[in-house]
């Protein structure tokens, strides 16, 4: 009998995926299954937490430059 596992399918660039894998490696709290280099399944209740962590990680990666004139 096949198993059905609830989760969120996340499709993204390989670079984003590798950051998610790195975040998960600290406590293994997010990833249900890695499917390929652009696709993984995340625990549904951890999605918002992961997005916040991902945004933080991306902020660290990019320079804190605000070159666009938006306010």
């Amino acid at each position, binding site marked *: *009998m*096949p*198993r*059905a*596992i*609830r*989760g*969120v*399918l*996340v*499709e*993204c*660039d390989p*670079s*984003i995926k590798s950051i998610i894998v790195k975040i998960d490696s600290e406590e293994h709290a997010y990833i*249900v*299954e890695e*499917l*390929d280099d652009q*696709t993984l*399944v*995340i625990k*549904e209740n951890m*999605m918002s937490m992961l997005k916040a962590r991902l945004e933080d990680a*991306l902020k660290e*990666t*990019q*320079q804190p*430059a605000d*070159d666009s004139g938006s306010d």
Partner: protein
Amino acid sequence: VVDQIRLWQIENERMKATPGFLFRDFENQKEYEGCSRYADEIGVLIWKNDAKRMFFVTRHEQLRDYIKSRKVK
């Protein structure tokens, strides 16, 4: 540096998240193929990998019933 930032922004937007169910651990290729084909036919299939015998669907109720009915046969 500016190009790098733009790249990150594009990648950020490219991230797509869809809630649903991952189906895995099929007993054999035939069972996998039958189920993934059925999922596709009823329009719930959004990702599959034949080599891994796994697929992802947005809804699972109808597919569950189908799998049970296959077992009865």
